């Protein structure tokens, strides 16, 4: 039997050196008595270590990470467990990827509890200001961790509290940060006297942020176990906050409604005055656009972000009408800014049309969609929604006075003509619309995006561009 005495204060190197020598000497896991320095062993007459007969043990990186946590644990069995894993890893390098193995599970549990202790240390250390010398402010903290984690977590505090000097004292070691230099000791420290007037502000905050109407002390204790309370200044308030909560809630319920304070009436009066002062709507595109912002003619406004009104000059020879805004248009509040908008932009450029000179709008002004996973999928507006939204489209046409209206897709045709038609039957022909105004039907650019066959897509795109060019020529020659 080999007896190995370690300080056991969370120093990985100490265990690693001993374990490496044992493994190279071929000592089996059952033949080692791991113990704390200073503790008595059953095997005081320990045998000297046999000579090294094997190469140094090899381990995956994941084992070193695991061991770094596990050696910090206070469990006396941690060294034997790690050595057993080390020896088993020599025959089975994939051991750690078997989460149901008993040794792997045991080590993972120790690592988890160290990780939790580390996390609680970052949460529950409380610095108190002490008298400092020189330019930097000085702070002191006392904390009682379950495991040997001070050296592990000290760099976290150094990264976070860089502009002050501080010291964290614990029964399992201490850390000090002075003028930007971190030093760590593994020796136990004594509890200092701590007093900081700012704690009073913190306690005020803690008491005020608590909602007495939802007392859940169990949920609190699950995350802030009682063992930490003695070093948390705010924890002293917990018993009285819990005890007073029912009376505070009862008082809220019993309180009769009071008349509103004087300033409320003044605010309300100002609001009413400004509502009355709103100017009457003139007959302009800007006024119609403003009115459409608050449209509730159909239910789509509840699920869409905003009304996406038409865009372009107040008077335009060419008006292009699409189906409805898509996801990007709905977010941005502008028509044709998404993927289909990019197709349209390219087609307009090819057809020699300046987008800024045309008036672009949609048959339906709100985005209709269905949730699919975490995305919003386009849904075709129904006849009722198209009919309700025609109210806005007719006003746009009446004010913009286009000579040619291009209907892109079946929904636009329905909105403009009131008739559901087969697109193929009426596409690409100029037909009379209102007096002095022609209608040209073409496809919707979103349709071009959905064509899987590249050759067909190219042909359809060319036809789309030709039809836009045809509309543009007609807009230039038709009498105003």
């Amino acid at each position: 039997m080999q007896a190995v005495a370690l300080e056991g204060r969370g120093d990985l190197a100490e265990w690693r050196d001993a374990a490496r020598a044992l493994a190279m000497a071929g000592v089996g896991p059952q033949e080692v008595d791991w113990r704390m320095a200073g503790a008595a062993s059953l095997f005081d007459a320990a045998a000297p270590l046999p000579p090294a007969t094997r190469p140094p043990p090899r381990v995956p990186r994941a084992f070193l990470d695991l061991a770094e946590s596990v050696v910090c644990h206070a469990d006396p069995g941690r060294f034997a467990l790690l050595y057993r894993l080390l020896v088993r890893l020599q025959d089975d390098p994939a051991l750690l990827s078997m989460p149901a193995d008993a040794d792997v599970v045991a080590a993972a549990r120790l690592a988890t509890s160290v990780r939790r202790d580390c996390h609680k240390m970052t949460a529950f250390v409380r610095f108190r200001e002490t008298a400092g010398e020189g330019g930097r402010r000085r702070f002191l903290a006392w904390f009682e961790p379950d495991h040997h984690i001070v050296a592990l977590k000290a760099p976290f505090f150094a990264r976070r509290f860089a502009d002050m000097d501080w010291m964290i004292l614990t029964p399992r070691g201490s850390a000090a940060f002075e003028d930007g230099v971190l030093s760590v000791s593994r020796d136990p420290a004594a509890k200092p006297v701590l007093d900081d007037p700012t704690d009073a502000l913190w306690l005020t905050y803690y008491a005020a942020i608590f909602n007495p109407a939802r007392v859940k002390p169990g949920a609190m204790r699950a995350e802030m176990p009682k063992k930490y309370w003695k070093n948390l200044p705010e924890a002293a308030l917990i018993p009285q906050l819990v005890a007073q909560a029912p009376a505070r809630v009862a008082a809220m319920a019993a309180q009769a409604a009071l008349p509103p304070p004087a300033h409320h009436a003044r605010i309300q009066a100002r609001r009413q005055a400004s509502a009355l002062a709103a100017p009457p709507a003139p007959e302009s595109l800007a006024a119609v656009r403003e009115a459409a912002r608050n449209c509730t003619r159909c239910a789509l406004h509840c699920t869409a972000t905003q009304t996406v009104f038409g865009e372009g000059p107040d008077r335009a020879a060419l008006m292009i009408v699409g189906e409805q805004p898509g996801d990007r248009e709905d977010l941005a509040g502008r028509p044709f800014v998404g993927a289909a908008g990019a197709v349209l932009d390219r087609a307009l450029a090819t057809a020699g049309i300046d987008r800024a000179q045309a008036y672009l709008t949609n048959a339906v002004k709100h985005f209709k969609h269905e949730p699919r996973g975490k995305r919003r999928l386009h849904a075709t507006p129904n006849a009722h929604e198209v009919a309700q939204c025609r109210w806005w489209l007719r006003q746009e046409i009446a004010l913009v006075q286009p000579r040619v209206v291009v209907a892109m897709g079946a929904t636009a045709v329905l909105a403009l003509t009131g008739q559901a038609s087969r697109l193929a039957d009426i596409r690409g022909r100029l037909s009379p619309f209102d007096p002095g105004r022609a209608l040209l039907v073409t496809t919707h650019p979103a349709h071009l995006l959905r064509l899987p066959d590249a050759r067909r897509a190219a042909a359809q795109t060319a036809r789309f561009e030709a039809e836009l060019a045809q509309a543009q020529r007609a807009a230039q020659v038709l009498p105003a």
Partner: protein
Amino acid sequence: MPRSLRERLAILSDAAKYDASCASSGTTRRDSSGTGGLGSTEGSGICHAYAPDGRCISLLKILLTNFCIFDCAYCINRSSSNVERARFTPDEVVWLTMEFYRRNYIEGLFLSSGIVRSSDHTMEQLVRVARELRTTHGFRGYIHLKTIPDAAPALIEEAGLYADRLSINVEMPTDAGLATLAPEKQPAGIRRAMADMRIRIEDAKEPTLRTRTRKRFAPAGQSTQMIIGADASNDATVLATSARLYGGYGLKRVYYSAFSPIPDASAQLPPVKPPLLREHRLYQADWLYRFYGFSIAEVTAARPDGMLDLEMDPKLAWALANRGDFPVDVNRAARESLLRVPGLGVKTVDAILAARRHRRLRLDDLGRLRVSLRKVRPWIQAEGWTPLRLVDRSDLAALVAPPAQQLALL
């Protein structure tokens, strides 16, 4: 007589506590070593304390002022309330944040405000605090700013430059509910602001073509809050709204806040006990939607009234209504099917997938993976284990549902 800082801190944190958001995670990693400043964010958030209401205290959550020109019935700070009023100067908030942070009480600041004078004026004050913290004091902790809808775009841009997270509360699950209880708030305006933030957040993630550097805009994204139980909306309506918010605006979180009685409550709202269990079930359903591949319709289909079952968690309720999908073979089933087994979480499912590459799993293997065998046994098949058609038993709900609480004699 002017109130002391401590008195105002009590008033303005009391006024802020009905906002449930507390997250301090998910932002860029940064620290203050070598910067001459203070603070760090390293991925996961830290909860520095817990109040007896079970909520974590991660951020200094306060209002700049609780004066407000809005009169939202559910709100403690509405203009018709007789609650005590106070205000901080931006410098006082900066001082409190820095001193609290130094003592490791907090991860950072969550600053909101009542609307005073105008949206722009209010937003400008909030931005000023964040700017001071970041530029004058080199503060590298977490900042969450409430965004005022309709504030000027330049102010929103600057807020996103300094803040880790921005949020606007939708408050009510439906537009009609908001119109009734918060007549001054514009649901469409709130949605427009969230859409605008999504575009800014996504644009900031794209490196610019020329410099390849990223613009900084709210790296921890945006979130919102809905009050539960202040209007008559059912859970299906609430969750459908959440799904629209997640899908439409890429929100990181929708917080559900059980409507809580407040001092000097509006006569419009009865001082009811907050529906805490309902709030909990909504969070569970929200998780199923975001991490377990459930659609909202599936989660809320079990009951005709569109409410989630308060007696059992929504995953168990779904499984009981869809027994034909079980048992699921833990040695063969796809990840999506395993995620639907009551009692298996995302972590355990991933552990099962890793473990079964090495050998066929038995029940005791699952036990070592910290799976509650009592919960999962009826729903799974494992090496040497087939549930005895347990899923066909008519009393299955009684076997797996949490036991009824014995009533105490008065």
